[in-house]
């Protein structure tokens, strides 16, 4: 019974959810016109901070994750302030460079990070949650689940709630004075400023929010995986995250969600041609950009869906 609660599927589901957080961490700065490739670096900061705090100081995971995300956010503010003078590709490369510098520090600060081997034995969220519910006298077998099924299920549900809360936050923020400021800066920075918008504040705000989200995702990643190493936060990761957002459609948040889901699943679906899957991935990106450079989902497409729903398939 309940065999459909398959740890393998739940694990993939959890990765998808973490990837959605990462995609949103690129989406938010992009919504104020800033292309950041620093997500992998901020993710690493979050992951290492939380892992080290929980391993070395027995901090509860919850606090570790919060600390990791906050530190990434603070770094985002520190980096965001001077980076504001940079636009477009300059900012992209500077943030990419920042990510590389962070990664190299992880590799070389061996006394703290154990170098390229990475950290093992990071406390896992699932076990912690299991212990917690057991504290209330609950056993997974009471609802007919095996322990590991239950653990993966809990992790998935927790991540799902976090993703939901994040999307709720971003969408609410978007439909408000803050969100309007972001998009006006994205569309015309000078005009936005002459409308009384403090562009410095809002640009740093969106950049730091992105950094915070990436740090949060990184910290969660550490406690879901149980081990981390610098190569988890490399250039490849930065590019992967960017592609989630751009592939899905960078104009709308649902694009990031879709991109993360689709592109996390795709390598799994392409397992039968696993040797060629990255080759196919590369070709797919080229074709997509040629055919639909704004990404799969955009405002017009969504508008059409809404229109169809409203008029029940009639006119649009």
């Amino acid at each position, binding site marked *: 019974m309940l065999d459909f609660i398959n740890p393998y599927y739940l694990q993939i589901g959890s990765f998808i959810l973490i990837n959605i957080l990462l995609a949103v961490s690129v989406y938010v700065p992009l919504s104020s016109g800033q*292309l950041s490739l620093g997500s992998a670096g901020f993710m690493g900061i979050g992951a290492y901070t939380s892992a080290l705090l929980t391993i070395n100081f027995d901090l509860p995971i919850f606090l570790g994750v919060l600390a990791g995300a906050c530190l990434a956010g603070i770094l985002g503010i520190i980096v965001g302030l*001077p*980076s504001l*003078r*940079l636009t*477009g*590709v*300059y900012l*992209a*490369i*500077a943030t*990419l*460079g*920042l990510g*590389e*510098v962070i990664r*190299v*520090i992880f*590799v*070389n600060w061996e006394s703290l990070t154990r170098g390229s081997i990475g950290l093992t034995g990071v406390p896992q969220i699932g076990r912690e949650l299991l212990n917690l519910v057991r504290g209330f006298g609950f056993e997974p077998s009471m609802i007919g689940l095996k322990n590991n099924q239950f653990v993966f299920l809990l992790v998935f549900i927790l991540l799902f709630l976090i993703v939901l809360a994040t999307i709720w936050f971003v969408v609410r923020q978007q439909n408000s004075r803050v969100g309007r400021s972001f998009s006006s800066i994205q569309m015309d920075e000078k005009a936005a400023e002459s409308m009384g918008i403090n562009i410095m504040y809002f640009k740093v705000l969106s950049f730091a929010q992105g950094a915070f989200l990436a740090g949060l995702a990184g910290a969660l990643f550490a406690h879901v995986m149980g081990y981390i190493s610098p190569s988890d936060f490399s*250039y490849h990761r930065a*590019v992967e995250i*960017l*592609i989630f957002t*751009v*592939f899905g459609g*960078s104009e709308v948040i649902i694009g990031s969600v879709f991109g993360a889901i689709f592109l996390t699943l795709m390598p799994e679906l392409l397992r039968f041609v696993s*040797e*060629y899957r*990255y*080759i196919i*991935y*590369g*070709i*797919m*990106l*080229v074709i*997509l*950009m*040629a055919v639909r*450079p*704004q990404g799969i989902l955009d405002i017009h497409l969504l508008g059409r869906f809404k229109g169809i729903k409203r008029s029940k398939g009639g006119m649009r």
Partner: protein
Amino acid sequence: MLLEQLINGITLGSIYAIVALGFTLVFGVLGIINMAHGEIFMVGAFVGVMTTGVLGWPLWLAFAASIVVTSILGYLLERMTLRPLRGKKGVSHLAPLISTIGVSILLENLSHHIFGAGNKPFRTEFAEISIEIGQVTVYIVQIVIFAISIILMIGLSIWLSKTKAGKALRATAENLETASILGVDTKKIITLTVIIASAMGGIAGILVGMAFNSVSPQMGLAIGLKGLAIIILGGMGNVKGAMVGGLLLGLSETFLVAYGDSGYRDAIAFIMIILILLLRPQGIFGSKMAEGR
């Protein structure tokens, strides 16, 4: 030995400069960053390994083969990934970035598939030959690399400033619309630019293979990222900046390895660009290709 390190640094730096020139030409004319440049360069290196190692061709023929292959790649890149995006409505500056990243993923994994993951040695008949000048040991390879880089840089500068095609390229870099009004066939110039940049990548690939005596599918990324850092350092689209930036990076890396912590070698490039972006965002040499030459 200070002098030896200086020679090592200049050798490394001149290779970096050639890689950076490939980036800078494309950026100068098209205003985009060709993320696939590193991988084109890697393919060039593999062509060198295959022709000299497996087929036993002489080095000059390997260069020729590499230039031919990377030029074709450059042409395909322009025709199939860059041109479809040009002048299309609603294309943001993200699109060519992603598109060329797609090509880089494709090429890296294709090479991985064909040549395997490991390092391939790059043997030249004079790899071990060195000459002693006083107490300084100089390898012939270093002299060859340096000479080829210098010839390439001088050749490019002359070509840009003296020939008709070179002038057309500069005009296009300055302003695409104006150039096309003045009768420059900008489509042809753009294609030519991407091909030249790629061919330079091919040459750089062989030079790196010779310098490090190893070639791998991942080298495109490692060197490509440094090339990116250099063009920021020297000023985007600036030919002189790419050369100076390349040398600067090569020297700093060599000296850090010799006298400091070698672990941070790969971070220098980025620490340098983060500093330069904060102090002088337009790079050491202005911002326009046409200005700083």
